[in-house]
């Protein structure tokens, strides 16, 4: 379900929204090649809420970055919403991200000189929407995250949990195809983390947002409908949530 309550095409639900095939990714440190992902295949259906877990260096953030289109694989195919990302130019990748991806960072990455409203409005500057329509969408997004009464506050005037909720509003305001979250509760206290996880579950269940979340925290992972474990660049196992 889209944020403005337009119905979604159910026919697409059966197809994997995210499809990775034979993906490898390695970095170079000097002459040394460091493998991060190794011949990885992955299908994520539309409307799922997946948690990626694993030890440090297992490649979970790299996998998230590939799905989000901010990094490119060394080899293999990354397809999101029917678009093969490996063939896109930098400009097209930026356009893909603007249209299809909502980002939630561990440290929120809000602009301190902008109010909550303006931070949420930021991605809409890339669209052709008029001022009034932008305002409508921002207000909806802030209502969804429960911060309609804080829209004129600057990030420094908000708690960590509220900042992350503003970041989530910024992520959903363009009504993206997928939400990617990298340790979204990693910098929050228990109560704030719980609120964020509740919000992500709401976005997944009520608004049918496809969410891929990287986390170290088993408690956070438990909020997802599927937990995938990575180890040494490969998917180790996956566990479906019984709820």
């Amino acid at each position, binding site marked *: 379900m889209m944020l403005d309550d337009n119905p979604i095409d159910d026919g697409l639900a059966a197809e994997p929204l995210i499809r990775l095939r034979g993906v490898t990714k390695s970095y170079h440190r000097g002459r040394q090649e460091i493998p991060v992902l190794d011949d990885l295949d992955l299908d994520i259906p539309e409307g799922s809420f997946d948690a990626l877990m694993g030890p440090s260096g297992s490649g979970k953030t790299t996998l998230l970055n590939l799905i989000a289109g901010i990094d490119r694989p060394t080899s293999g195919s990354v397809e999101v919403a029917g678009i093969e990302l490996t063939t896109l130019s930098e400009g097209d990748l930026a*356009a893909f*991200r603007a249209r299809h*991806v909502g*980002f939630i*960072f561990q*440290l929120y990455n809000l*602009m301190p000189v902008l109010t909550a409203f303006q931070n949420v409005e930021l*991605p809409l500057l890339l669209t052709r929407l008029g001022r009034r329509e932008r305002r409508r969408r921002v207000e909806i997004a802030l209502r969804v995250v429960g911060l309609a009464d804080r829209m004129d506050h600057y990030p420094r005037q908000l708690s960590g949990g509220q900042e992350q909720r503003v970041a989530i509003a910024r992520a959903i305001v363009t009504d993206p195809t997928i939400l990617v979250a990298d*340790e979204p509760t990693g910098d929050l206290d228990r109560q704030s983390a719980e609120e964020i996880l509740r919000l992500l579950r709401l976005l997944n269940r009520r608004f049918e947002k496809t969410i891929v979340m990287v986390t170290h925290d088993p408690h956070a992972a438990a909020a997802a409908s599927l937990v995938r474990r990575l180890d040494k660049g490969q998917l180790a196992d996956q566990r479906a949530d019984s709820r």
Partner: protein
Amino acid sequence: MSWLGLVWRSALRNRLRTALTTAGIALAVIAFLFLRTFIAAFYAGVENASADRLVVRNRIAITSPLPISYVDKIRGVRGVEELTWMSWFAGVYRDERSFFALFAVDPPSFYRVYPEFLLDEKERRAFFADQSGAVVGELLAERFGWRVGDRITLRGTIYPGDWELTIRGIYRGRDKATDRQQLHLHWKYVDERVDERQKNQVGIVVVRTAPGTGAQVAATIDRLFQSSLAETRTESERAFNLSFISMSAAIVSAVQVISMVVLGIILLVLGNTIAMGARERTSELAAMRAIGFRPRHLVGLIVGEGVLVAALGAGVGLALARPVLRFIADALESALGAFLGPFELSGRAAALAVAVCLVGGVLASALPAWRASRLVIVDALRRTE
């Protein structure tokens, strides 16, 4: 929020730093405008030179006089419509620092050849009638608090002795650029009081010609005195004024270079400010790239900040320039006196300062903008997480 709003808010991220940079640019603009105005004032005599006036002087040097007998001979040259003569009277009033230009002139012909000096008819008659009288420019009168009827004493250097003068008139300028800091006294008064060696001599003869005949008349005059005891050099007033100040050309050139260096330095400061601002928010810029902003958007944002700060500085500088220049001009007047022309801020200098600031804003932010556009999103996010 508009794009411009985003640029504005980004530029004001660190208000103290932006304010200091803006103040620095404003100061540089004022310094630039001061130096440019100084140069313009220096060249004012050249710029205001009349196109139909010729100056006849001794060929050997500007300080060598011509015999008064040349005046009548020159008057007979075809094409000469009017002429006058004058001598540089190096007199000191109070002390050497109170310098101003003094000319011993033939009053009736002088004011016919120089119609830009406006004198009331009553004062004109009083001056003509009093051989020990003098006329001063209104700025000079204002500077020393002189009024018509005041008696002043000058100490002569070229023409030794004390020279008592009565101020008979205060002239105004026909144009804004007319030099209003001169003192005119009777050439005859001087000539009658000097010793034999200095008698019957004039510094220069100034000739007004019919339009378009200047070159021909100049050649005729110089031919007339060829092989005589005092050969002449006749040139346009502009050329004469230019040669007069060419001795200080090196200083003027240095001032011109300094004026550009001042702006150059401040643009480096601006570049540093923008670069620091961009470096401090690498993670923000990376996040912007992640959510779909393209490299050109970041370039626009950072260059926009540079231009905005530069424009702010230029605006503040321009707003303050006029009162500051007035203050400096007043201070300089006592030091340099009539050595400089009118100290007026020109529109061209102001436009040049604004243009240099805006172009400088683009140049100063070009490197940080280019760096931001080449940001590797993953690396930039990893650095801060």
